[in-house]
């Protein structure tokens, strides 16, 4: 069966097309360009305002070697991962339910969109009142950032599902649970992954902002302390760390997203 498929001209052509764009090279060029631009900025603005790439990397290495660093990193990782899991799981469940119930979805959508667009920092005092000063406040703040796009993307994916898939489900006499699990969810997966991608970035952002206020631990706290003391070197080093991590995760999700979309592509 494998051999037969390899010989298949359509499949082979598609593989060749995939190989034609070397993504690694593109990425390298892009990163190289950014670093060069950064170096030019340093020359123009001076080392005080914008530390150079090399200085930033060595500063980052210094920070990471510090005995306090693992504690802070662990705090941020724990808070943002917990917030992420909650955002994804709860967002998915709520999105599926709202997508399935037309009326509930229509009521909820404008509210969610409004909530999505207000600066969530205005809600932080309420969060602090509800959750206190510990890690739960940061998690909650991460969740309110990340969960909304997951809900919105999932809800729309379910709503826009091809009617003929649902008719096929009925023609094959599937139960409601079978229809949800084997048709609605897989059909919605590409959209849901897009929601996860946006949700991931915002959850991380929310958690970090949460750490910047009313917190004594975490990378967000380190950032705010460095800002207060005017330590641009540390600010840049930490920003670099966050950018690299967030970009790597986002790129991985994007690759997954692309793969799923290529399959979904109804040409």
């Amino acid at each position, binding site marked *: 069966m494998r051999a037969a*498929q390899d010989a298949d001209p*359509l499949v082979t052509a598609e593989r060749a097309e995939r190989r034609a764009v070397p993504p690694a090279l593109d990425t390298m060029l892009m990163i190289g360009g950014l670093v060069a631009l950064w170096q030019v900025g340093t020359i123009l603005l001076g080392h005080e305002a914008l530390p150079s790439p090399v200085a930033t990397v060595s500063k980052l290495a210094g920070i990471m070697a510090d005995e306090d660093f693992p504690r802070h990193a662990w705090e941020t990782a724990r808070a943002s991962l917990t917030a992420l899991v909650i955002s994804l799981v709860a967002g998915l469940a709520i999105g599926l339910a709202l997508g399935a119930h037309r009326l509930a979805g229509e009521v909820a959508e404008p509210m969610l969109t409004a909530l999505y667009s207000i600066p969530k920092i205005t809600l932080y005092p309420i969060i602090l009142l509800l959750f206190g000063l510990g890690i739960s406040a940061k998690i909650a703040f991460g969740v309110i950032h990340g969960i909304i796009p997951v809900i919105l993307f999932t809800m729309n994916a379910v709503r826009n599902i091809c009617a*003929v898939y649902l008719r096929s489900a*009925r*023609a*094959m006499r599937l139960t409601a649970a079978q229809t949800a699990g084997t048709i609605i969810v897989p*059909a919605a997966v590409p959209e849901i992954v897009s929601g996860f991608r946006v949700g991931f970035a915002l959850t991380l952002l929310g958690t970090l902002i949460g750490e910047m206020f009313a917190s004594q631990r975490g990378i967000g706290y380190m950032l705010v302390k460095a800002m207060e003391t005017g330590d641009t070197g540390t600010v840049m080093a930490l920003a670099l760390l966050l950018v690299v991590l967030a970009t790597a995760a986002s790129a991985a999700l994007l690759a997954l997203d692309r793969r799923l979309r290529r*399959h979904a592509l109804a040409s």
Partner: protein
Amino acid sequence: MSAEHLCLTGVTRIYPATEGHAAVHALGPIDLSLKPGEFFSVVGPSGCGKSTLLDVIAGLARQSAGTILFEGKPVTGEVPDGIGVVFQEDASFPWLTVFDNAAFALRRAGVPDAEVRERVRHTLAFTGLSSFAQAYPAQLSGGMRQRLCIARTLVTRPRLLLLDEPFGALDQQTRLLMGDELLKLWRETGATVLLITHSLDEAALLSDRIGVMSARPGVFIDLVETGWARERDSRLAAEAGFGVVTGRLWAALRDQSIKALAMAS
């Protein structure tokens, strides 16, 4: 089994009025009975209610009036066991391979794995998709995807097969060959077939009997018996009788098509 495999009496379908749209009387009243193993085709102008007819027979939509009996039991808003449907639209699941698409219904129904593999392999061979078993629908042409939808339904061995313009996306030659395959399958399985098509030639070549529908609301204005032998294929097109059948279909359909066009504009 009763003398009739499928029996419709006074079946109508009215789409109820919605915000800004008046109610649409789409179909009927329709009276029709199909004998077991009959090959029946429906032709009619665009928008006359052919797909609506298929929906109510399959139990995918409820009729507004009348009764539908499949194997003696009334059909009411649920798809009865023994009916297989191929839709007009591409219904292949893009997230599954060709093989998994074809195996989908059997797996949900709990058919043992070995049997699933055997039946899927056989059906894919029959629909000419064997070498694409591991491909995804996005890698197939429109016609191949439609074949996949046919395979997905055939693999469940329906006793009544409802096909809504299944060859609409195919070129004429492939269409003729697929028609031959369909005839072979029909003979092998003994299934009753109801085929909706907009091709008069296709209806004339394949069917025992053809129902010609009027413009909306669709009712049968003529029922044409072809009188073909059960052993037949597309070479029938060369025979004199073929022209007689298509001629009669067009005679009945011409005025209705003009009416449907006027209605649409």
